[in-house]
């Protein structure tokens, strides 16, 4: 089976800025694929290259094996859900949804019927006569989704579609989007800077930084085994331990990443341990984050769950002992654990 999307050594430069630099990736058919990265990391440009709004300076782009380099957006069978929704303000919701059918010459009755069906699918039945300005942010988001899906694209591109919504609505839409993707079975390519969103929704994700892909993998693989210090720090919080400190702590001069929630407080029977001074204690609700300065430059973040055991919180300035298992350390110099 041909991959739904394939990018091969694709580059797009704007003047001296390398927005996308030698990016290669494959999105499998029917997959929910996330492109995660900070702003300016090239993920949106990558999406626009697939949609056809940008042309690559170098490299090949193919949809289901068919090269689309030089093919304008209106001749590509992909559709986009834009970050600001880009709904047509002078058309009703129904006309917005039916737009793709209208420009393809589908008859009025037929496109009305299918647009109504699409609005039902995104739970907006009965709102077809309204103008986009009369809808809430969440509703507009659904209209944008219905409008993009009605063309039954090979690939649906989503550019930070939930970015403008508030937290509660965003979480609800995450669940709905995922369910919708399973229902329609269309390949989703989802751009986001929110690592929680990417981890929770995607089958696989690519982490972008400075126009390059740092790592591609399943959410679990990315979180558990970050390949680089950037991935370790961007996807979830992590302690990046440099080679010199690593040698002092473990006896081997290999930099590694260590998740705050994998560190225990107290002299548990673990493979590694160190003593340090508490610098700060922050209450985060479900957990408490404690920053511990080791003797030297290194500060380790430790997340302690606020469960029912009700241990006393360590006071800033006090000395505590930290410990972690050997498997919790993820080496950042390419190799596996010794």
């Amino acid at each position, binding site marked *: 089976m041909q991959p739904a999307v394939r990018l091969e050594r694709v580059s797009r430069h704007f003047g001296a800025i390398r927005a996308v630099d030698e990016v290669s990736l494959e999105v499998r058919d029917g997959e929910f694929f996330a492109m995660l990265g900070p702003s300016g990391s090239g993920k949106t440009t990558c999406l626009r290259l697939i949609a056809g709004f940008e042309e690559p300076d170098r490299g090949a782009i193919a949809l289901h094996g068919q090269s689309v380099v030089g093919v304008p957006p*209106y001749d590509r069978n*992909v559709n986009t859900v*834009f970050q600001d929704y880009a709904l047509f*303000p*002078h058309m009703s919701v129904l006309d917005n949804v039916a*737009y*793709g059918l*209208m420009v393809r010459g589908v008859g009025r009755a037929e496109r009305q019927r299918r647009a109504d069906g699409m609005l039902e699918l995104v739970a907006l039945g009965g709102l077809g006569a309204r103008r986009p300005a009369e809808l809430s942010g969440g509703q507009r988001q659904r209209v944008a989704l219905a409008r993009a899906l009605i*063309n039954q694209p090979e690939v649906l591109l989503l550019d930070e579609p939930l970015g403008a919504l508030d937290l509660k609505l965003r979480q609800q839409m995450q669940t709905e989007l995922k369910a919708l993707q399973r229902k329609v079975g269309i390949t989703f390519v989802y751009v986001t800077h929110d690592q929680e969103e990417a981890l929770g929704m995607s089958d696989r994700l690519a982490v972008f930084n400075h126009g390059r892909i740092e790592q591609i993998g399943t959410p679990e693989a990315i979180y558990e085994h970050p390949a680089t210090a950037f991935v370790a720090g961007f996807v979830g919080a992590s302690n990046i331990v440099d080679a010199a400190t690593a040698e002092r702590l473990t006896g081997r001069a290999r930099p590694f990443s260590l998740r705050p929630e994998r560190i225990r407080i107290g002299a548990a029977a673990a493979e590694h341990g160190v003593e340090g001074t508490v610098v700060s204690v922050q209450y985060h609700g479900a957990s408490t984050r404690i920053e511990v300065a080791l003797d030297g430059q290194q500060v380790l973040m430790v997340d302690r769950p606020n469960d029912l055991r009700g241990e006393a919180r360590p006071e800033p300035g006090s000395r505590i002992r930290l410990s972690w298992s050997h498997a919790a350390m993820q080496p950042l110099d390419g190799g596996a654990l010794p």
Partner: protein
Amino acid sequence: MSVAATEVPLAAAGLRQTTARRLSTFLYRRGGLLTLLLLAPPLAWLGVIYLGSLLALLMQSFFGFDDFSGQVVYELTLRSYVELLTNPANLDIILRTVCMAAAVTLGAALIGFPVAYVMARYATGRAKALFYLAVMLPLWSSYLVRVYAWKLILAKEGIVSWAFAEAKLGWLLNGVLALPVIGGPSLSVSYLGMFLVFTYIWLPFMVLPTQAALERVPKGLIEASADLGARPLTTFRTVILPLAFPGLVAGSIFTFSLTLGDYIIPYIIGSSRFFIGQAVYVHQGTAGNIPLAAAFSVVPIVIMAVYLTIARRLGAFDAL
């Protein structure tokens, strides 16, 4: 100690500018008063001087006029309007002016839209500045100078006739001038010539609002349209044009109403056939028939009111 250290400079500053500080605090707390103060002069100007004189004008049109003594008779009557609407010569003037205004509006839209489109969607930086300059530059010189310049350009001995003759196309120009209604002895005394000059003079008023409206069409909507499968021409027809339409209407309001009211271009370029502005000028001046002049000037107001109503019905302001 640290408390005292921060208090001293604040107190000193407060003492230094007590009056100014009090005044700004006073106005800051009473935002409505500030708004009223800012709006009072323009409200006085628009409300009293402008609307007041407009009402006075309207009143004048309902007074009578004694043809023998040439005096205004101060009693309410509809005689001026009867005269205006039953005299075929007056109806001709109105029809002529409205047709010219409509033609000029259409011409300005056809020429102005592509210019506005290039300015809004393609020109950047220096090129855009040049476009602005090209559109605005004519407004920097005197209206009269430009109209007289056009008279020379369009005259029988002018550059247009000369160019047509040199290109061996003299027959074409003569053929056009031989056409009924729009033709005439030369361009400078024909309706066609007048149309050209009107279109030239009012073109900036069409280009600028249209360009502003086109510029406000979000790039994202054009991309969304292409993304959904629309070719550029379809996108233009279904997205760009409807969203830029209010700008075109705004421009057409300028070109239409300015043409309706102008009396200098018909005087310099036209034949002896009157336009509304000339009729007003003559009736209030030489004839002293102020009521009829006032009735004439009510005509453009009514036409514009009808025009705006139709534009609104067509949905020209829906996308505002």
